[in-house]
């Protein structure tokens, strides 16, 4: 089975994890027009290439980020959400 390295629990079988899809920018509800909400809700990153995604290690309910290649399926790195550049 494919192995994913959880930043907290170390290398585990991929079926212990759940994907929550590509990271989306947060919107300001006060400033957001309908068209931008639509984009935010329905247009997830799907380009052939590397995406940053939310993942959860299910048994420990720990959420983290992973960089993965959508074509080769290589997991390039996994890291705690606090290490996301440009984000608090």
């Amino acid at each position, binding site marked *: *089975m494919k192995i994913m390295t959880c930043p907290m629990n170390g290398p585990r079988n991929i*079926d212990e994890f759940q994907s929550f899809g590509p990271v989306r920018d947060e919107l300001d509800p006060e400033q957001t027009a*309908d068209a931008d909400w*639509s984009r935010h809700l329905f247009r997830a990153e*799907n*380009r052939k290439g590397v995406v940053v995604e939310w993942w959860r290690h299910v048994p420990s309910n720990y959420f983290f980020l992973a960089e993965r290649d959508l*074509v080769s*399926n290589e997991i390039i790195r996994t890291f705690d959400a606090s290490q996301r550049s440009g984000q608090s």
Partner: protein
Amino acid sequence: MPLGLLKYGLSRDYPVSEDIPATPALKPSYDVVIIGGGGHGLSCAHHLAKYHGITSVAVLEKGYLAGGNTARNTTTIRSNYITPQGIAFYKEGVALFETLSQELDFNVMFSQRGQLTLAHSEATLRSFHARAEMGKHLGTRTEVVDQKAVQELVPSLNMDYGGALEILGGLWHADGGTARHDAVAWGYAAQASRRGVEIHQRTEVQGFEIAGDRVQAVKTNRGRIACGQVLIATGGMNYDVALMAGVELPIRCYPLQAMVTQPLKPWLNTLVSSVSLHTYLVQSSRGEVVIGGGSDPYQLYSTRSTLDMKEHLAEGAVHLFPFLQGVRLLRQWAGITDMTPDNSPIMGASPLDNLWLDCGWGTWGFKATPVAGKRMAETIASGRVPDILKPFALERFETFQLLNEMGATAASH
């Protein structure tokens, strides 16, 4: 060897017919360029040529004819969806399959033997009632059946698996069936070619030339083609190809996996699927048991398979029919599915004037091959989207008028 047979074999008049001509040279322009030589693109080409007299058509296929999801699907044909718009559309699709062999003069082996979807919980049964009522209202044959009726329909089913996943009833869809997927594509290709449509295999679209709101030309590995109208029908690559034209579709790609067993003597008359087990089975006319269809749990552009998914499908199959436990798998595979947020397709206009979409077919588009081709041809020929397609417009995501078919696509495709 009997002399007569030899004479016949060597005769110049030996009746060899070439159904699909070899790829010709590309012309500098066509009235309609169809990107994707899968069932949908070929069906559209056939309808354009036969019903609208449009024969300056090139179907561009990057690989071999219908080698995408048309070749990989498990051939479930049905109309037992949830939304009235969905049911009306798929109902027309099933009706077209009923006469497709005559339409194409090619046996597509349509076998309308009914589909049984199993409920293992009260919640599932309740949702079946809603689907059955909507289906009946719109004139399809869909009804909820009890345990006894399930047993009569499929006597070999394991009804009680230790209590937890006991079968409580089912959704019986007498209109459901299967057809031979390759034959559908080949039949459309042969008919379209006979009327002058050109099918260009190993011709990959790599970009678009756009001026203002129009596509001027498509760029391919074999050169540039100017075009009047363009249709995108590239299956798992729909997001990728539309993006080349600057159109970002609400699509995410996931592999979908399936497999078949060695041939067994005919025992399963109907299509059987289970909502809770995420597994469905159908016995092909060769006796093989086709088992589908598991979506991978994360996005990926790959047709690789995984042992975990195959194990999951095998577990569901053995759960329903324990005697399958010793049976061997013959083949297994995956296709890339273009999944929309509401599990309904995207058909109709794009932000560009002459670029049309037949996309977002995900895990459910084989059954729509005839109807999508027919209706997209009508759209391209007239420049107007027919009423039956309007609910499937790309704009529905901007106006929040989604057509949620999740509950009708999760268990079977």
